[in-house]
Each structure stands twice: as structure tokens, then as C-alpha cells.
């Protein structure tokens, strides 16, 4: 039998010890207990991310782990903390028991660690909502995996994230894997994500529309498809017309009027042709299926990611106006506000790739952040 690795236990005991020691300090300063919990979660998350110890999470899981089990017909919202995500390692389907969010029957608080070393299975019918208000409905069972390292390139997660996905009817069986890096990105950038897409609009497509997705190879992140919820990542549907933004290899499904679509592959990125490039942007978004992005954001994100895809611009421009009205219906005004900003950024970003790019790196960076945040639940492993 191998020697027992003392590192995970040691780290855990040190963390527990320190947190206990400073509990009084925090109280004296008049700081809420929640801040202390945030500190602990942040700390644990970072240690996990560092892969300093493989077993770290396992030992830690028990306390913060909650299983998520959502029947297809049940809409549940998963709320994730923005500070850090703690996800039980090695667990297949977590069971959620949370209060209902919006129209959903129940909402679950799910904490995902920024870096999850193991795949997370999210059954269909689960609605995930980040604390920031992003909603993600998992119409299709999704497996969120994490890859080591931060997904600096959104494209990477998407690439890995997207895998051939069976027809919607096979939702339950087809469980695409999300790149972990995407997850990381989303979690780590949860703050940015919040700033980028505050409005919890879910993009929903009709069941019929979703079926189209099934035909296309798609990676399905935790599809947020709850009623009245718009997923920023938006479902990709090549078949969909004006409301869908078509990018080479990537299809976005614009918001669709809330429809009870238990089977909807809420969040899906279809990469019909190349699973790489186009998949990338999305992957970052849907990471961990925790992020909700407006469809416009998706377009923007994709646009940004698709540096080399000029064609993207056109559809984007055309699509956005179309999706705007839809989004307005279901989303907050904030989303609309984001669009123009994103467009500007996108324009600049697209030009950036060229030689004549003079846009500031800051803008790009911020946009990139937004883009990464745009794609919820895409856990895409880095290349």
C-alpha cells in the first residue's frame, strides 16, 4: 500500500486552524461571518487550483458538498457563489436542494471551486444561477470537467468543450464534457462575469429549435433554459433564423420566449464544422454551466474570439439587432447596455488582430474578460 499522503490533511488542518484563529479577529473588526467564509472558500479554491495536492478536494468535499439531483421535469436553480466555487470532487451528480429562483421550482446553492479536478455531472433540468444573477438551465445532462490551468484562451475550453452531441432526444445520454479550464475561467472571473452580465436572462429556444441543435455537434454546458431565463451563451442552433447568430462552425440560439422545455439543450454550442475555433469562445462561457450570458453577449464573445472570422461580424451585426428585441423582452435593460459596449469592443477587437490595431490592450483585456464570462458553463479543457 502506498504511503499515505499527508499533504491534503495537513493543508486542510492548517486552513481550519487559521480560520478559527482569525474568527475572533474578524468579529472584533465587525466583519461579517460571511467574509470569513469567503476567505476560506477562496483559499481552498486556490489551493485546489494549484494542484498542490490531488486529494485536497476529496477530503474537503464533505462539508461543502451537496449533491445535485434534478429530474428532468424539475426546474431548479443553482446559485453559485461569486467568490469561489466549491465542487465536490469525484462526485457525479450533485443533488441540489435550494429555493426556487424565479419561475423555477427550486434553487440550489452550488459552490464550484474555481478549479475542479474532476468532471461534474449536471443532470438535465437543473437550473444554475450564479449569485450574480446569471441563470443557466441545464436542459441536457452536462458533464463539466476541469482542466488544469486557467483558460486564458477561451477558445481552448470551447474546443475541448464541444463534442459531438446527440440529438436532443438523447439528451440524457449525451453528456458533453466541459473543459475545466472554462470552468476555471468562469469561476475565477466570476467577478468579472458579474460585471459583464448582470442580468439573468436566459435564452430559451423552443423544443423544436433545440432539436436542431441535436443535429449539430454541440457541446452542451449546463444549459440554462429555464423559463424567462436567457442564457448569455445562448443555445446554438444552426437551423434557427434571424435570431441565431451564425458563425462558422458556431451557431447561436437567440433568446426564445420562455417555453417549458425540459428537454431543451439549453446551453449548447454547436460546432458543426470545426470544433476548435468556434467552440472556444463558448467554452469559456458555459464553463461550469454557471454563467448566464445574454445571447448578445454570446455573439460578442464569439465575435471577439473569432479573430479570424470576419464573417462573424456580419452575422453578428445582423443578429444582434434581432436578438436585441428578444432579449429585451426577457432580459434586463442592462443587457442591452452591454451590447453596444460589446459591439464597440468587438469592433476594436476584431481589428486588433490586424496589423493596424491600435486599440488599447486594456479594452481588449476587459472585453476578453467579458467574453470569458459570457460563456457560462463551458468547461473546456485547454489544449
Amino acid at each position, binding site marked *: 500500500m*502506498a*504511503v499515505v499522503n*499527508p499533504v491534503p*490533511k*495537513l*493543508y486542510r*488542518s*492548517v*486552513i481550519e*486552524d*487559521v480560520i478559527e*484563529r*482569525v474568527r475572533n*479577529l*474578524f468579529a472584533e*473588526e465587525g*466583519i461579517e461571518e460571511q*467574509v470569513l467564509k*469567503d*476567505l476560506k472558500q*477562496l*483559499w481552498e479554491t*486556490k*489551493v485546489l487550483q*494549484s494542484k*498542490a495536492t490531488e486529494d485536497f478536494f476529496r477530503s474537503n468535499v464533505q462539508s461543502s458538498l451537496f449533491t445535485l439531483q434534478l429530474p428532468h421535469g424539475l426546474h431548479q436553480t443553482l446559485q453559485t457563489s461569486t*467568490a469561489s466555487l466549491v465542487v465536490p470532487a469525484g462526485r457525479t451528480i450533485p443533488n441540489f436542494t435550494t429555493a426556487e429562483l424565479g419561475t423555477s421550482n427550486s434553487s440550489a446553492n452550488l459552490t464550484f471551486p474555481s478549479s475542479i479536478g474532476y468532471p461534474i455531472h449536471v443532470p438535465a433540468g437543473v437550473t444554475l444561477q450564479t449569485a450574480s444573477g446569471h441563470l443557466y438551465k441545464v436542459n441536457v445532462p452536462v458533464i463539466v470537467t476541469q482542466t488544469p490551468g486557467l483558460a486564458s484562451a477561451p477558445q481552448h475550453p470551447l474546443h475541448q468543450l464541444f463534442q459531438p452531441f446527440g440529438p436532443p432526444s438523447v439528451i440524457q445520454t449525451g453528456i458533453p464534457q466541459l473543459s475545466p479550464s472554462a470552468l476555471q475561467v468562469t469561476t475565477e472571473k466570476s467577478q468579472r462575469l458579474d460585471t459583464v452580465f448582470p442580468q439573468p436572462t436566459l435564452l430559451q429556444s423552443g423544443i423544436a429549435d433545440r432539436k436542431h441543435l441535436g443535429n449539430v455537434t454541440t457541446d452542451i454546458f449546463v444549459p440554462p433554459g429555464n423559463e424567462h431565463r436567457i442564457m448569455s451563451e445562448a443555445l446554438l442552433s444552426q437551423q434557427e433564423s434571424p435570431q441565431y447568430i451564425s458563425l462558422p462552425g458556431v451557431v447561436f440560439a437567440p433568446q426564445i420566449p420562455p417555453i417549458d422545455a425540459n428537454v431543451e439543450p439549453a446551453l449548447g454550442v454547436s460546432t458543426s464544422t470545426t470544433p476548435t475555433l468556434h467552440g472556444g469562445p463558448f467554452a469559456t462561457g458555459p464553463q461550469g454551466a454557471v454563467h448566464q450570458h445574454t445571447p448578445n453577449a454570446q455573439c460578442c464573445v464569439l465575435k471577439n474570439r473569432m479573430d479570424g472570422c470576419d464573417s462573424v461580424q456580419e452575422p453578428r451585426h445582423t443578429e444582434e439587432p434581432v436578438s436585441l428585441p428578444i432579449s429585451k423582452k426577457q432580459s434586463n435593460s442592462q443587457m442591452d447596455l452591454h451590447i453596444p459596449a460589446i459591439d464597440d469592443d468587438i469592433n476594436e477587437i476584431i481589428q486588433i488582430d490586424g496589423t493596424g490595431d491600435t486599440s488599447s490592450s486594456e479594452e481588449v483585456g476587459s472585453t476578453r474578460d467579458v467574453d470569458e464570462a459570457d460563456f457560462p458553463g463551458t468547461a473546456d479543457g485547454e489544449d
Partner: protein
Amino acid sequence: MAYQLYRNTTLGNSLQESLDELIQSQQITPQLALQVLLQFDNAINSALAPRVRNRVNFRGSLNTYRFCDNVWTFVLNDVEFREVTELIKVDKVKIVACDGKNTGSSTTE
């Protein structure tokens, strides 16, 4: 006051980063963060000796050695760490060691 030696470790750095995030969001004061780090120093210094009993042997080429302010700093190359069950090879190892008094303390990277 315990050695602040372990702040530059995975555990220590992750704690510092987390504290920095809280400071950024103005949830805690820098002074409080410093207090937390001091507590961390105490906690880890007092946790290592009784909790860790593993024995590891390592052999490599000594690149540099330094002894300053009662602190040893070594840089080794092509090091093999041997534990009972596993062997790990690394190209470069930096060892920072403070006087252990009763127990040796060191950190490597």
C-alpha cells in the same frame, strides 16, 4: 513570532491572494490581512512538526549555497526526491531553511 518562511508556499500564497481579493473588494482591511498572515505563520509552524512524519531523501547537484542572517538558501539542479514509494525528478530546486531549533524548517520550490 514565528517564521514568515511559509508565506511563499502554495498554501501561503493562496492565502495571500485570497486576502488581497478581499482587500480589493474592501471587505477587510490590510491590517486585518496582516493579522491573518501572522496567524497563518503560527498555525503552519506549529502544525508541521507534529503532523508530518514522512521522510524523504533527495540527491542532486548543488548549484549555489548561501547562509545569511541565519538563513540557508540552496539551489540544486537535477534533483531526485525519493520517498518509499515514489521517485520524483526535478530540474531545479530552491531550498530556504531557517534555524529549526528543535525541528528543521525548510521550503522548496
